[in-house]
């Protein structure tokens, strides 16, 4: 993507490329997680959960629109949020692998949501201090929604972890499976370092530390144990995704790909 330099001389932002990278990563994470969650609609274990998870997905779609819309502006090639969502190939997506992991059972979906929420919350806190005003605005709006997402998913993880033997086992299995994926959020790559260096976003290590402390407290209430020696499962930030991701995009993009250039 061709965002390397500052285009407008009057632009006070010193760092268009890091801002673009940040917006794209946040937007893709929100979009892909929303897409996964939305597939539960009509199939959740209880009506209340169906409604609550749809709410989370709706918030995330709204956030994806804001982030991708801003990424498109920064890129300056006239691409809209929809263009970015529906007309990019898999290799161009920058979401972490965690959010694209298959839904599994409702426990795995809940655990995935919680691992993301408990990072997302602290990440947005950091982004509220961004040097980029638009990023601050989006982060502030999103943070209000994510506070609720985190409250909900934490509550469910605790109740299911400390529920029946079966619910405990399912949540522990989900945690074991997903924890290595969550670590991709913590490991900074070159783009993350440039984002932090430009004051666009927080240092990921500090976000990781807060997320870990928060998770430890909740996991002890949930009687669940996080793996200690998990090697990060990463690749998404560099556009190297899972095999499942291709099928997911094929489904998501089918209409735009089949009928190029029309209005919907």
């Amino acid at each position, binding site marked *: 993507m061709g965002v390397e330099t500052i285009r407008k001389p009057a632009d006070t932002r010193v760092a268009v490329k890091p801002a673009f990278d940040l917006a794209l990563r946040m937007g893709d994470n929100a979009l892909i997680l929303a897409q996964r969650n939305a*597939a539960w609609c009509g*199939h959740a274990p*209880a*009506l209340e959960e169906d*409604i609550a998870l749809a709410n989370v997905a709706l918030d995330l779609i709204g956030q994806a629109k804001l982030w991708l819309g801003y990424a498109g502006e920064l890129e300056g090639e006239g691409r809209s949020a929809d263009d970015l969502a529906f007309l990019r190939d898999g290799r161009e997506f920058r979401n972490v692998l965690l959010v694209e992991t298959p839904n599994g059972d409702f426990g795995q979906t809940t655990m995935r949501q919680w691992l993301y929420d408990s990072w997302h919350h602290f990440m947005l806190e950091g982004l509220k201090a961004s040097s980029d005003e638009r990023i601050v605005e989006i982060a502030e709006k999103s943070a209000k929604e994510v506070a609720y997402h985190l409250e909900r998913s934490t509550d469910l993880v605790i109740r299911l972890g*400390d529920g029946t033997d*079966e619910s*405990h086992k399912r949540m522990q299995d989900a945690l074991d499976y997903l924890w290595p994926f969550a670590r991709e959020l913590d490991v900074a790559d070159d783009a993350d370092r440039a984002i932090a260096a430009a004051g666009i976003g927080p240092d990921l290590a500090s976000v990781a530390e807060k997320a870990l402390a928060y998770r430890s407290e909740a996991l002890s209430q949930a009687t669940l144990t996080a793996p200690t020696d998990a090697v990060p499962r990463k690749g998404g930030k560099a556009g190297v995704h899972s095999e499942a991701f291709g099928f997911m995009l094929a489904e998501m993009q*089918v209409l735009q790909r089949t009928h190029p250039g029309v*209005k919907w």
Partner: protein
Amino acid sequence: MYAQKVESTGARPKSLDEMDPQERAFQERIDANIKIEPKEWMPEGYRKTLIRQISQHAHSEIVGQLPEGNWITRAPTLDRKAILLAKVQDEAGHGLYLYCAAETLGVTRDQLTEQLLSGKAKYSSIFNYPTLTWADIGAIGWLVDGAAIMNQVPLQRCSYGPYSRAMIRVCKEESFHQRQGYDIMMVLSKGSEEQRAMAQDALNRWWWPSLMMFGPSDAESVHSAQSMAWGIKQDSNDDLRQKFVDQTVPQAEYLGLKVPDDDIVWNEAKNDGKGGYDFGEVNWDEFFDVLAGNGPCNAERLGARVKAWEDGAWFRDGLMAHADKQAARKIAA
């Protein structure tokens, strides 16, 4: 409609003279448009008929999530995805209010769910048709939510308080759904040739099943006569169907689409001289076939509900067990 064939007592409504004093007092309240509330005395037939009607309606909302839910992951833009997801979520909410309204009559949500999953309870025939293209999402909003509103607006005046209040909330949302559906049809019918064809094809497939939503002619039905006397049904199925056709034919014309019925013709004499459309005969054999379980998607719809319920058992049990543990800890502390 959402409750297409609700059996009542099977007896002709009694006249006031034939009623005992308690029943007469009840009927007089209904005739005076005073709402009946959960704790009050009511004839057993009234209670049972209402449970059947409200639960059929609730089941229809829940099963109704499925055909449109199909397209959430394929919606063509972020806005369309959000609108569709919010809509299907609304339907879950409607199901929830309606189950709550039914619970005020002395049944539990679990009992009603059991009746749905065992195939004992009915839900609207319309949701046993497949959603094959994106235009079906437009057609459903326009026609199916449109037909639902036609039926539910009068139910806002239903004699049973909780049902009437649920309908007031539901109707507001259904009218959004209808507008959103019509908007999809508008964009498609003004779009590319393929999009227009998609819109016409969707109208072709959804038109007749939408007319079936009102149920067979009930002019002679004793069930309907009793439900009308009790104020839980206001209009005959045929009257509502006529109203729907009269409203919808001009909307199709505005879209430049053709309603798939060659018998449609304006008739000045209809509706007491106000005019209305004549239209062809609904294929009632198809309707009864779908209702009997032989529609294109009956097995899939019920199968999806059964799977969601069974797969979710551990989740519901886990939450319950946690609540019990918390309660026990409180007592111990």
